[in-house]
């Protein structure tokens, strides 16, 4: 185990790869719409001729820190850098508007680092038990996990619960667009082949956040965030320390969300979006102030950010040891490892243990280095939120459109981008929550797919599996507990208002 660390530090090629991979991963995460998959594809041609250790270190380190970089535009501009960052956008950007951008970025980076390290530990511990864990979680459990997320989305809309339910239902309805993969029935495609695969998540989520935020930004006289930031005494270093303190204060919640993220990573087909939203829900459910979620709660940043990064360690378990990639990102990683001569699968642990430990160390160190870099730069990064809108808005529009085209390769998705953008503008102006829409869109597909497969394989009693029963029970208890907390806190606000009058 320590030999691998020595090997990593003593190999100039591996160290060079490590030092190049971290900024590259941060950059791919920070540019909205790019993310880990595009990063891996972009670097694959440069891997030829690299030795296996350097190549593996480069790939793992770069892929591991994408979400750490993704938090930056999410928090500062209100535009999700990666898909899972959508869970952070509400609270993160609300903190920026409040002048606490540095604190939010610091808390996000520190939580990402801790999550990444815990994910690596989970990877190390689960090496011998990967197939057992995989068998423990199947479609019934995925269905209840997705249902968990959908149920929380309405509750997390706080006082606007009905509005949250409505936007959540619109998101769910949009999740059904496309040709159903199981029975081949076209749904709401209007005969347009480009909609056969459904609504593209990147186009929809970017439009929903980027267009309304940029329109709002361009209507401001100067930057409100800048004014707020200037008015706060606890700027710069104070905010960095505050962000680190936040992470320490909420350490147990962060530990739990990191573990949830790692487990979600192991389950094929769930992915980072589900991990982030589940952990956002868990953070709200266990918070003493759930009513602050969506309005700038630092817990709403720490929970999903820890899960985003811990998920990567979990996802490596089936990919490396069973040769079964749990997500499309992992499938590309698996492909990228092949020309390096690393044959993943059940024999990897037996034949090439050192490379596993090198990858594990790369995972740990890259998460720590990336968080360190972002925290050190947080004070300066916060200046992005102070740039005059006229300098920033056109570039964000261009970047968003480029991201949509890069992800779909289809000009017709610009129509979808425009439609979702308009919906986002209306929702923002009317003060309706947008997050339930995104949750409905993301989890609706996962829930439907898992439900149909559960019914096909296990029949109507699929929920009698121990894991499914456990999750069903946990979901009911959590929902009841969160509802009570929300009702209690809204009552106390109401009574406070009454007493003040």
């Amino acid at each position, binding site marked *: 185990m320590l030999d691998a660390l020595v090997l990593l530090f003593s190999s100039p090629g591996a160290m060079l790869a490590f030092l190049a991979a971290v900024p590259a991963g941060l950059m791919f995460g920070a540019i909205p719409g790019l993310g880990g*998959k*595009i990063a*891996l*594809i972009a670097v*694959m*041609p440069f891997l*030829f001729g690299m030795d296996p250790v350097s190549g593996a270190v480069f790939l793992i380190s770069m892929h591991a820190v994408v979400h750490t970089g993704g938090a930056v535009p999410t928090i500062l501009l209100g535009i999700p850098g990666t898909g899972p960052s959508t869970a952070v956008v509400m609270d993160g950007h609300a903190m920026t508007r409040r002048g606490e951008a540095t604190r939010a970025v610091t808390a996000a980076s520190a939580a990402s680092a801790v999550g990444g390290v815990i994910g690596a530990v989970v990877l190390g511990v689960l090496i011998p038990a990967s*197939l057992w864990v*995989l*068998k423990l979680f*199947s*479609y019934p459990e995925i269905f209840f996990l997705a249902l968990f997320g959908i149920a929380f989305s309405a509750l997390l809309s706080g006082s606007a619960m009905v509005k949250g339910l409505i936007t959540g239902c619109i998101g769910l309805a949009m999740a059904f667009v496309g*040709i*159903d*993969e*199981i*029975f*081949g*029935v*076209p749904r709401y495609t209007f*005969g347009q*082949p*480009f*909609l*056969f*695969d459904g609504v*593209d998540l990147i186009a929809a989520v970017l439009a929903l956040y980027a267009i309304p935020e940029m329109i709002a930004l361009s209507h401001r006289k100067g930057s409100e965030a800048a004014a707020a930031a200037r008015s706060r005494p606890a700027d710069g270093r104070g905010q960095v320390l505050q962000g680190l303190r936040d992470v320490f204060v909420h350490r147990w919640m962060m530990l739990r969300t990191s573990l949830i993220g790692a487990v979600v990573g192991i389950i*094929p*087909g769930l992915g980072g979006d589900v991990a982030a939203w589940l952990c956002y829900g868990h953070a709200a459910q266990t918070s003493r102030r759930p009513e602050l979620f969506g309005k700038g709660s630092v817990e709403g940043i720490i929970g999903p950010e820890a899960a985003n990064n811990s998920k990567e360690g979990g996802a490596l378990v*089936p990919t490396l040891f*069973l*040769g*079964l*990639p749990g997500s*499309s990102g992992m*499938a*590309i990683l698996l*492909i990228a490892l*092949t*020309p390096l001569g690393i044959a993943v*699968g*059940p*024999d990897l642990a037996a034949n090439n243990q050192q490379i596993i430990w090198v990858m594990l160390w790369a995972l740990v160190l890259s998460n720590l280095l990336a968080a360190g870099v972002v925290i050190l730069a947080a004070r300066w990064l916060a200046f992005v939120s102070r740039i005059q809108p006229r300098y920033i808005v056109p570039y964000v529009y261009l970047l968003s459109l480029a991201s949509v085209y890069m992800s*779909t*390769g*289809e000009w*017709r998705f610009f129509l979808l981008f425009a439609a979702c953008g308009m919906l986002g503008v209306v929702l923002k102006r009317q003060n309706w929550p947008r997050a339930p829409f995104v949750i409905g869109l993301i989890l609706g597909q996962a829930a439907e*797919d898992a439900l*149909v*497969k559960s019914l*096909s*394989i296990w029949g109507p009693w699929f929920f009698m599996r121990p894991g499914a029963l456990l999750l069903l029970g946990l979901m009911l208890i959590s929902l009841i507990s969160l509802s009570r907390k929300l009702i209690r806190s809204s009552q106390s606000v109401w009574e406070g208002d009454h007493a003040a009058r």
Partner: protein
Amino acid sequence: MAACKTVIFLPATLTNRSKVFRLPILIAVLGLCLLAPSRAATDEGYFRDKTISYVVGQAAGGGYDRFARLLAPHLERELGARRVVVQNVPAAAGVPALNDVYRGRPDGLTLSTMNTGLLLSQIGGLDGMEVDLAQMDWIGKASSEARVILVRPDLELSVFEDLQRAGPPLLFASSRFGSAAFVQTDLLREAFDLNLRVLAGFGGAEAEAALAKGEVHGILTSESNAPPLIEAGHAIPLLIFGSTNNEALSNVRRWTEVAKSDDQRLVAEQIERMSLLGRLLATTPATPEPVLAELRRAFSSVMADEAFIAEARRNSLDIDPLDGAVVEALVLDFLRADDRFRELVARTLEP
């Protein structure tokens, strides 16, 4: 060696129904092969400093995409083009992208690679498909992948006949409804009277994962996916469609040993025929002959290049090429499938 298996296969598997077409096809193929060099020479330099779009109807990172990115710089060099730009248009299994290429300008500047399953989609009359693949101008194909039936070892099915006798219904996972894997598995169920339920929607490596986890009883998969599952003890192979050099599959029975009825032979033969047409490359219909000949020459030249083959092998992509004229003949022959096969495919594609 790999190329040999294709050449040997062509006359061996042409059925009685298609014997009528054998002679004209071979004459046409030979004719085109002889004409190709002279036409290329007349149009040398057509692609110089031009940008070529290489449309991939699949998301970045998949097998078709990796092959396209591998091939693009080599084609660029062979054609003298300024750039060969790979564009991923994955929506709806690449059908909209293929529709665009089909309707595009016939200037040879837009190439398209597509899922072989689209051949079945055309035969079955899939909605949204405006393309007539028989009209496309074929540049070549690069690989072959035999198909293998894998089942869980705990089912104690040692031979294919055990699968025919098995009950209650066994669950077989396949990718999305309408995909090649789905249609082929359902065709096998129908023709061999297998007591199976085909579950669609298992994308990527999900079907292999479901088999390893014991959630489904079997899958029909590509030869490259089978060895890791067999070696790990998660699956045993029962039957293979197509020839393979893979050692893990060397003792697996071929379909010819079990196919008895006309329907069984018809279905198995078509699955084997499809396994030859991997990584197809085509361009817009009615591309001028000299331009098409130049594209075919460049493609064949890259496929014969040792450096390219070695690079492909490093990427786990086996090369088993065929020239565009031969591919055209094979595609036309496949699309001329008899009415019974059309009927069977159409039945599997009914939602």
